[in-house]
C-alpha cells in the first residue's frame, strides 16, 4: 500500500498569499494513499527538511510530494533529504505551486484549485514511482585520438600529460596534418614547422602515447568507457622497429618522378618515401602502386641499399584491436576541388593555384625553397591576384558556409608575397573581410597598410590566358565598375570541406554528421566538443572549418572532457534511462533508428540450448540519456523510461 507524504510549503508568503494552503492540505489529506499532509513556512530550510525526514521515518512513507517551488529549484535538495531518511531519492516529486501557480495567478480560489489538482496528480504519479539507483559503467582509462594533425596531437599530449594512456592513430605515414604543409601562420607569422615539429616529436616520444601512423580505424564497437577499436596497420614494407631513418633507400630509389601529395604536386617524391623531411616517425613507406619491385618483381634496390635490412616486401596489413574508454575524433578536412569553377581555369592554367599551393611555394622547405615562383615557367610573378570565397559562401556552386580561415590566410599570403617579391602587386577580390579573432583585424590592416595588399571588393567572373598573362575580369562593387587585371599568378581561397570519406567514417563511429559531412556536436552551444554518442568527442576541422588556435582550443577542451571521464574508475549516470520489455518487443528496430544517442542495440534471446529464439532491442544504460523518444515511437509499448514511465504519466493525467 502506498503511504505518501505530502508537504505543502508556504515559501514564506510566496505561495501562502495566493494559495489557500489549509484548503490544499485538507483536500490532499482526503486523497487515497496520502498518509500525512502538512504545511510549513519553508520546507527547504533545515527544520523543514528535518520534518520531511522525520515523517518518512515515522510513517514509513513510500513516496513524497513536496508542493512548493519548481523541481528545477529544489528537486535535488529534497531528493537528498529523502535519501538521508532512507527513502530512495527517486520516490520524490515536486508539485510546482509557486513558479507555475502562486506567482502567476491573481485569483486565490483558482490558484488553490489548480494547486490541489497539480499536487493530486503528482501524488498519483509518485505512487507509481520506482526506486532508481545510479548506473555505474566501468571505464577503461585509455583514450584513442583519431587523426594526427595539430588537433589530434594537442588532444593526445593533453591527455597523456595528465597521466593517461593515449593511442594516436594517423592514416598518413607521418603525423602533422595540414599544419605541416603551411609556411607561416597568421597572425604572428611564425613558421609553422618550427612550432609544430617539436609537438610532433613530443607526441611520438611521450611514454603515454602510442602513435600508430599509416593506420586506419576500421571498426568501433562498445560504448562510453568500453570501446573496442579495430585499427588496420597498413603494411609499410619498412620495419619500424629497426629503421633508423637514414634515408639511403630514398636517395637510391630509381622511381623519382612521382608528384608529391605533400607538395600539392608542385614537387616530386620517390616510391619509397617519407612525405616530408621532418616526418614523424621518420620511417619511410613504400608506395606499392608505384614501386617497380611490386610491379614486376625486379629492382629491390632499397632492400639492397638498407644496411640494417629493414625492408620487408612480404609485410602484410595487420589488424590490431584496442580497448579504449574514450575517443577523440580529429580527422581534419580537405580542400574543395576548385576545378568546379570552370571560369577560373583551375586545372587548365598552371598558374591558377590554391592557397595551399601558395603555402608550399612560400615554405622554406618547399619545392622552391621559399621563393615565390609561378608553376608554369618558374618566373617570379609580378602581379598576383587572390580570389577569396572561391567555393565558400556560394550557394550555387560551392558550399553555403564560410570556411573561416581564408580571409586571414589570404592577407597572410599577400604579406608573404610583399616580403618576398619587392615591388610586386597584389589584388585581392573579396566579399567581406572576416577578421574576428585576437590580433586578426590588426593583421589584415597591416597587410593593407604596410604591405599594400590591394583589396578589391567584388567577384571575379572570368580568367583567361592571353600572351602569357592571366587576364582576370571582375567587378569592383565599391566603385561600381568592371575591373580587369593582368596577372602572373592567381591564388584561389578554396573552401574547406570534410574529408571525402567523412560520412562513412561517421557511420563507423556511430556519430552524426551534417549535410556536408562535418561531424555533429551534441549541442552546438553547450556541448560543442561532445558528440551525441557518449564517450566520443570532436576536435578540429572535422566538426567545422577552423583555424589553428580554434582547433587547438577544441582539442584541449576535448582532452578535458576525456580526463573528466577518466577521473573515476566507474562512470556514474542518472538512472533516468529507457528499458525494454523483452517479452513483447517485436524487434522492428524503430527505436534503434530513432535514438539520438545510438544507445539501443540488438540482443539475442536464446533458449536453454543457446539457440536464438528472437532478437529484441536492448538499451545500453551507459549511453542512454533519457529523452524517451524511443518510448513514444514504440507501437507495442515495449520500451519505457524510468522516472517517466507510461504508468506514471498515465496516472498523472488520469488524476487531472
Amino acid at each position, binding site marked *: 500500500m502506498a503511504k505518501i507524504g505530502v508537504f505543502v510549503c508556504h515559501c514564506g508568503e510566496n505561495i501562502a498569499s495566493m494559495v489557500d494552503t489549509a484548503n490544499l492540505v485538507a483536500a490532499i489529506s482526503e486523497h487515497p494513499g496520502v498518509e500525512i499532509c502538512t504545511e510549513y513556512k519553508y520546507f527547504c530550510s533545515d527544520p523543514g527538511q528535518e520534518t520531511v525526514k522525520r515523517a518518512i521515518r515515522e510513517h514509513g512513507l513510500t513516496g513524497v510530494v513536496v508542493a512548493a517551488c519548481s523541481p*528545477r529549484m529544489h528537486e535535488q535538495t529534497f531528493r537528498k533529504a529523502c535519501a538521508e531518511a532512507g527513502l530512495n531519492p527517486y520516490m520524490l516529486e515536486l508539485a510546482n505551486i509557486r*513558479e*507555475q501557480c502562486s*506567482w*502567476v495567478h491573481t485569483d486565490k480560489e483558482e490558484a488553490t484549485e489548480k494547486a490541489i489538482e497539480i499536487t493530486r496528480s503528482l501524488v498519483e504519479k509518485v505512487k507509481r514511482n520506482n526506486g532508481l539507483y545510479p548506473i555505474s559503467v566501468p571505464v577503461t582509462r585509455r583514450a584513442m585520438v583519431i587523426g594526427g594533425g595539430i588537433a589530434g596531437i594537442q588532444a593526445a599530449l593533453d591527455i597523456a600529460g595528465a597521466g593517461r594512456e593515449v593511442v594516436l592513430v594517423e592514416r598518413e605515414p607521418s603525423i602533422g596534418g595540414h599544419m605541416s604543409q603551411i609556411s607561416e601562420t597568421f597572425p604572428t607569422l611564425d613558421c609553422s614547422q618550427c612550432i609544430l615539429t617539436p609537438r610532433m616529436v613530443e607526441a611520438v616520444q611521450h611514454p603515454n602515447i602510442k602513435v600508430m601512423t599509416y593506420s586506419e580505424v576500421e571498426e568501433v564497437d562498445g560504448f562510453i568507457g568500453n570501446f573496442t577499436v579495430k585499427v588496420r596497420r597498413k603494411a609499410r614494407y619498412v620495419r619500424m622497429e629497426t629503421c633508423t631513418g637514414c634515408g639511403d633507400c630514398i636517395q637510391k630509389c630509381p622511381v623519382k618522378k612521382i608528384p608529391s601529395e605533400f607538395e600539392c604536386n608542385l614537387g616530386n617524391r620517390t616510391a619509397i618515401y617519407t612525405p616530408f623531411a621532418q616526418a614523424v616517425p621518420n620511417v619511410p613507406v613504400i608506395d606499392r602502386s608505384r614501386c617497380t619491385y611490386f610491379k614486376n618483381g625486379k629492382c629491390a634496390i632499397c632492400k639492397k641499399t638498407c644496411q640494417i635490412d629493414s625492408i620487408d616486401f612480404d609485410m602484410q596489413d595487420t589488424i590490431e584491436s584496442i580497448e579504449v574508454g574514450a575517443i577523440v575524433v580529429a580527422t581534419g578536412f580537405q580542400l574543395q576541388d576548385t576545378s568546379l569553377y570552370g571560369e577560373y581555369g583551375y586545372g587548365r592554367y598552371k598558374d591558377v593555384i590554391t592557397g595551399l599551393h601558395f603555402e608550399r611555394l612560400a615554405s622554406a622547405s618547399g619545392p622552391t625553397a621559399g621563393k615565390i615562383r609561378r608553376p608554369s615557367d618558374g618566373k617570379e610573378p609580378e602581379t598576383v591576384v587572390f580570389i577569396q570565397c572561391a567555393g565558400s559562401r556560394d550557394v550555387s556552386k560551392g558550399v553555403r558556409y564560410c570556411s573561416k580561415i581564408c580571409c586571414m590566410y589570404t592577407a597572410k599570403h599577400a604579406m608573404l608575397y610583399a616580403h618576398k617579391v619587392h615591388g610586386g602587386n597584389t589584388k585581392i577580390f573579396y566579399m567581406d573581410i572576416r577578421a574576428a579573432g585576437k590580433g586578426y583585424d590588426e593583421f589584415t590592416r597591416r597587410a593593407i597598410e604596410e604591405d599594400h595588399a590591394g583589396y578589391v571588393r567584388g567577384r571575379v567572373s572570368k580568367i583567361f590566358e592571353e600572351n602569357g598573362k592571366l587576364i582576370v575580369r571582375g567587378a569592383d562593387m565599391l566603385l561600381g565598375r568592371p575591373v580587369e587585371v593582368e596577372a602572373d599568378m592567381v591564388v584561389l581561397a578554396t573552401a574547406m570541406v570534410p574529408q571525402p570519406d567523412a560520412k562513412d567514417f561517421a557511420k563507423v563511429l556511430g556519430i552524426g554528421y551534417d549535410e556536408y559531412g562535418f561531424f555533429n556536436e551534441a549541442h552546438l552551444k553547450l556541448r560543442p566538443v561532445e558528440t*551525441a554518442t557518449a564517450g566520443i568527442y570532436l576536435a578540429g576541422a572535422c566538426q567545422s572549418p577552423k583555424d589553428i588556435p580554434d582547433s587547438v582550443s577544441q582539442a584541449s577542451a576535448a582532452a578535458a572532457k576525456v580526463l573528466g571521464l577518466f577521473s573515476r574508475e566507474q562512470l556514474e549516470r542518472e538512472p533516468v534511462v529507457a528499458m525494454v520489455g523483452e517479452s513483447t518487443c517485436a524487434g522492428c528496430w524503430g527505436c534503434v533508428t530513432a535514438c539520438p544517442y545510438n544507445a539501443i542495440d540488438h540482443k539475442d534471446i536464446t533458449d536453454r540450448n543457446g539457440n536464438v529464439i528472437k532478437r529484441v532491442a536492448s538499451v545500453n544504460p551507459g549511453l542512454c540519456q533519457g*529523452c*524517451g523518444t524511443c518510448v513514444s515511437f514504440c507501437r507495442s509499448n515495449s520500451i519505457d523510461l524510468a522516472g517517466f514511465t507510461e504508468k506514471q504519466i498515465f496516472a*498523472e*493525467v488520469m488524476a487531472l
Partner: protein
Amino acid sequence: MSEPFEPKIVAFVCTYCTYAGADLAGTSRMKYASNVRIVRLPCTGRISPMFILKALQKGADGVLVSGCHPGDCHFAQGNYHARRRWTVFRALLAFTGIPEQRIRFSWISAAEGAKFAELINTLTEDIRKLGPFEQYHELQKVIETQSTY
C-alpha cells in the same frame, strides 16, 4: 448565462525548455490564466499521442504540447522526432473531427517566459470562445450511463 465557461486545458511540455520558460514566467511574476495543468516530461520526444487522447477523455477542452525550438533540444533530436509525430497525429485528429484549434503545438524556450504567459492567455481565450468540447465529452458521458440497449 451565469458564469463564463472556464476551459480545462492540459499541457505536455519538456522540462528543459517550455517548463523552464513557464518557471521564468513565474519568477518574472507575469500573470496568466489558471486553466492550464502542466505535465512535465524530459523531452518532447517522450510525449506520446496517447497522452493527448487521455487528456481529452479526462475532459480537456484543449491540449497544448510544447518544447524546445528546433536545434535547441537538450537531447539534440527529440523535438525533431516529436515534430514529425505531431504533424501526422494532428492531421489524423483533424480528419476525425477533433478541431485543430483545440490541440495546439508550440516551441517555447527557457527564455520565453513572456511567450509562455501570452500563449496560455490566448489559448485559454481561444478555447473559451470555442466552448466546451462537448462532442468528445459526450462520449465519456455515454459510458457513465446505463446501457439503453
